[in-house]
């Protein structure tokens, strides 16, 4: 709902400020940074999923040409890589939290686990020397699948005594059982949410540096949240106080969650830099990224939905197994719990919900948040079981959704699983999507496809998500070890230009444009007078970074509050100069005017006055014009909407083609529609990727068999049509801007729409189920089996 479509204000599709540097090759990514005297690190990684390290002989490597040092876990006696969330099991006991050393000590627990670091003058020297390190392993049986791990036959961590990290529940089980006993119908479903590799196009990288003169460490890293890395690494791993540790996340080539976490390599290069007295660069190659970036999803769900005779949902019961991998990554425990199970009401009035989540350690790469983080898993579950319930009860799949929607006049709406939705209109987004997708013409298209021997299907997802993470009052009570507020500083310079320091980080989202639009709109200044600074802990006061679609809903709100403080102070300055009361000063279009008079000052004049003050009443008015705000949201935000996917399947080959994808998303107020639509496109592509193409597969011994772009099917340009993306709907009620967030909706809403469409296409041929990814082989086999 743009307020205006011209100029640079809210609602205008302003072209991005950051594009010129990216388009001309002038971006500054971590691997582009080269420090004087820089050396290079190569990390030797475990080839085994589970093994005891009985000895390491690195003498040959240490003697190799150009090698400066070799370190192992025995050398690197530092703190454990911390986890940011603590979950309590249903019996009240805290989750099991194993030690996570940056370099393995005594045991390796997944293929890719860090064993040693070689530092040399060049990267090739470090890599070549690593080959001469002799590591003796005693290979142990690996717990690769969650079902194997649950037997505890082979313990990933001996010292904690179990592979069950926690056994958590939410909701009222008795109420659910009661409702189930009275149901006219119960639909059951078993689902696998396929494991994914995030694969941001820029591989992770880190440069560590130590200045002996000042005692200051600097880490340049591919991070979505440099302050969080400074806090976690400084306080918990390396014991470096914040004032001696600078973390810089420069241009970052995509994150999708995988660059939130504090990774071992960041600690290794920072810790080793003073030891060798030179800066150290580490850059992952893609194969290394596959086995060292946190993976995403990987849940197994069983769900039961109880319905009355009219198709109204009475209760939902869910059992989830969530793979944590070998160690707890920074956000991992909150993904299947507070970011997933709390969403199980979806857009529906289901009055009773209970979920049990078992989090399980396995000998695989740690699993953590990936675009959507928990919400795609619950959305997939809800939207699949709703479709199945429609099939089983004979109620139309759109009708069954309508009968169960939370009505537009029922907000704020308290769900039975902790969250209170503030706004939404699911009927509206569904009706719009139905029109745009031309549902009315589908039968004819299906018939036409059938005449060519092809199978058409249409699938829906009327989803909802919770983002803008996170209100500290809510998440603190849920186990977060920190509230996820955000901060902004607005520094007005003497001649009236403005630098904004934001604690969020942009790695593709275009904050340099959107945030400048906000300030431009509110202060009446041209965009080019506003600079957005982010990503450097020595410049930016503090920040929690960017993930969970939080930058605008939380960071933008902090920014608005800082701008309003600027306006307040500027009014006082103008009042002083214009000899009026501050209450009588009006601010409009960049001018401060005494109400009802023609006496006014331009923004730039006030700025200059602030820095060259005359006779300020010092007890009331300080010089300068520089304000900060920290904003802790009152609630999550709740984007939602409707995705409709139309597919065509070739029964001869099993190939599924997405013919049309329609997304109507309610993301609250839109600041820059061009950027918003781009976010949805990217999310939808990742969602279709999960549904049709991507899968991180391990073999029984714990080797990642899809460990390169040759084996892991990344979505490519010829996998998609153009998408039909629009936004409409309601405003968030608890932030000034009314914004909800858009970064993840595409990836959350789309997978069930795709799979529901695939099942719809195959239904008449007798196929009743399909798992992700719906590869040609799976589709073809399902068709053969159904014949």
């Amino acid at each position, binding site marked *: 709902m743009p307020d205006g479509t011209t100029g640079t204000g809210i609602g205008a599709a302003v072209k991005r400020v950051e594009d010129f540097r990216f388009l001309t090759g002038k971006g500054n990514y971590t691997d582009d940074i080269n420090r004087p005297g820089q050396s290079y690190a190569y990390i030797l990684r475990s080839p085994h999923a589970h093994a005891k390290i009985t000895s390491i002989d690195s003498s040959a490597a240490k003697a190799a040409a150009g090698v400066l040092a070799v370190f192992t876990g025995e050398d690197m006696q530092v703190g454990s890589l911390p986890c940011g969330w603590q979950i309590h099991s249903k019996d009240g006991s805290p989750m099991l939290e194993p030690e996570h050393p940056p370099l393995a000590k005594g045991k390796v627990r997944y293929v890719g686990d860090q064993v040693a670091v070689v530092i040399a003058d060049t990267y090739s020297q470090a890599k070549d020397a690593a080959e001469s390190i002799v590591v003796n392993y005693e290979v142990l049986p690996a717990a690769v699948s969650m079902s194997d791990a649950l037997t505890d036959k082979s313990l990933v961590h001996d010292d904690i005594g179990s592979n069950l990290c926690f056994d958590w529940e939410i909701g009222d089980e008795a109420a659910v059982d009661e409702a189930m006993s009275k149901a006219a119908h119960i639909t059951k479903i078993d689902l696998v949410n396929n494991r994914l590799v995030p694969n941001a196009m820029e591989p992770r990288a880190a440069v560590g540096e130590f200045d002996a003169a000042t005692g200051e460490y600097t880490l340049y890293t591919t991070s979505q949240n440099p302050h969080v890395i400074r806090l976690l690494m400084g306080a918990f791993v390396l014991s470096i106080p914040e004032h001696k540790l600078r973390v810089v996340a420069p241009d970052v080539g995509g994150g999708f969650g995988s660059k939130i976490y504090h990774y071992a390599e960041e600690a290794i290069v920072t810790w080793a830099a003073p030891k060798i007295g030179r800066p150290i660069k580490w850059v992952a190659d893609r194969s290394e990224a596959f086995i060292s970036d946190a993976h995403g999803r990987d849940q197994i769900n069983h769900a039961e939905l109880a319905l009355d005779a009219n198709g109204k949902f009475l209760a939902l019961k869910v059992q989830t197994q969530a793979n944590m991998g070998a160690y707890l990554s920074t956000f991992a425990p909150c993904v299947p719990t507070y970011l997933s199970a709390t969403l199980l009401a979806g857009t529906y009035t289901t009055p009773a919900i209970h979920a049990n989540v078992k989090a399980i350690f396995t000998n695989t790469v740690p699993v953590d948040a990936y675009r959507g983080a928990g919400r795609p898993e619950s959305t997939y579950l809800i939207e699949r079981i709703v479709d199945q319930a429609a099939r089983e009860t004979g109620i139309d799949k759109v009708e069954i959704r309508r009968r169960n929607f939370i009505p537009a006049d029922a907000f704020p709406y308290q769900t039975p699983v902790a969250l209170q939705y503030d706004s939404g209109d699911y009927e509206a987004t569904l009706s719009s999507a139905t029109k745009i997708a031309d549902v009315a013409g589908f039968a004819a298209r299906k018939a036409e496809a059938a005449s060519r021997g092809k199978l058409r299907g249409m699938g829906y997802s009327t989803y909802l998500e919770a983002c803008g993470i996170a209100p500290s009052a809510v998440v603190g009570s849920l186990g977060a070890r920190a509230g996820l507020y955000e901060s902004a500083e607005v520094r007005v310079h003497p001649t009236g230009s403005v630098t904004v320091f934001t604690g969020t980080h942009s790695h593709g989202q275009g904050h340099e444009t959107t945030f400048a639009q906000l300030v431009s709109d509110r202060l009446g200044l041209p965009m080019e007078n506003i600079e957005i600074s982010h990503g450097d802990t020595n410049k930016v006061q503090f920040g929690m970074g960017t993930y969970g679609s939080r930058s605008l809903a939380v960071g933008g709100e902090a920014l608005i509050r800082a701008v309003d403080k600027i306006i307040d102070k500027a009014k006082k300055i103008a009042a002083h100069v214009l000899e009026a009361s501050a209450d009588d000063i009006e601010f409009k279009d960049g001018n401060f005017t005494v109400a009802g008079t023609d006496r006014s000052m331009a923004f730039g004049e006030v700025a200059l006055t602030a820095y060259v003050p005359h006779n300020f009443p010092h007890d009331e008015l300080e010089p300068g014009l520089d304000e900060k705000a920290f904003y802790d949201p009152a609630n999550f935000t709740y984007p939602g909407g409707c995705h409709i996917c139309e597919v065509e399947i070739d029964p001869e080959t099993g190939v599924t083609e997405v013919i049309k994808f329609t997304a109507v998303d309610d993301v609250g107020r839109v600041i820059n529609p061009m950027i918003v639509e781009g976010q949805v496109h990217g999310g939808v592509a990742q969602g279709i990727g999960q549904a049709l193409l991507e899968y991180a597969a391990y073999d029984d011994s714990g080797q990642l068999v899809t460990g390169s772009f040759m084996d892991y099917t990344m979505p490519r340009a010829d996998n998609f049509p*153009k998408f039909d993306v629009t936004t409409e709907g309601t405003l968030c009620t608890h932030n000034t801007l009314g914004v909800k967030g858009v970064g993840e909706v595409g990836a959350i809403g789309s997978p069930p729409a795709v799979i529901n469409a695939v099942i719809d296409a195959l239904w008449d041929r007798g196929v009743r189920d399909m798992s992700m990814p719906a590869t040609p082989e799976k589709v073809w086999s399902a068709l053969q089996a159904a014949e």
Partner: protein
Amino acid sequence: MATVSMTVNGKSVSGEVEPRTLLVQFIREQLHLTGTHVGCDTSQCGACVVHVNGDSVKSCTMLAVQADGSDVTTIEGLANGDTLHPMQEAFRDNHGLQCGFCTPGMVMSAVDLLKKNPKPSEGEIREWLEGNICRCTGYHNIVKAVQQAAQA
């Protein structure tokens, strides 16, 4: 070590390289032209695409010594000062980039497409760009950008 000489973005350059040095390493590490990116180690992603003697090439699949004597254009050589090449302009107009990491390779590849096929269909654009992976955009706006550039 071998000596290689080539023209890069109109300038003659030369350097000492190991026989195994890739063209992309020579460009990034010795010429400090860091606009060309490395996104994989299996020649799949296209982040490293440059032009060698006018054709798009994945510079991670070519040795620096193989490019000896050739004429290389990288993303840094595409714009004319502050005036963007029409393909760069089209990417900006259509929001064909987000994080920007795939962008240099994507743009260089798309420029070569239009040289070889000035009026490609949407399907031809998608097929041509199949060797360039973008994780951010869903390709929608990249395709629109190439279509706009083809109109120009």
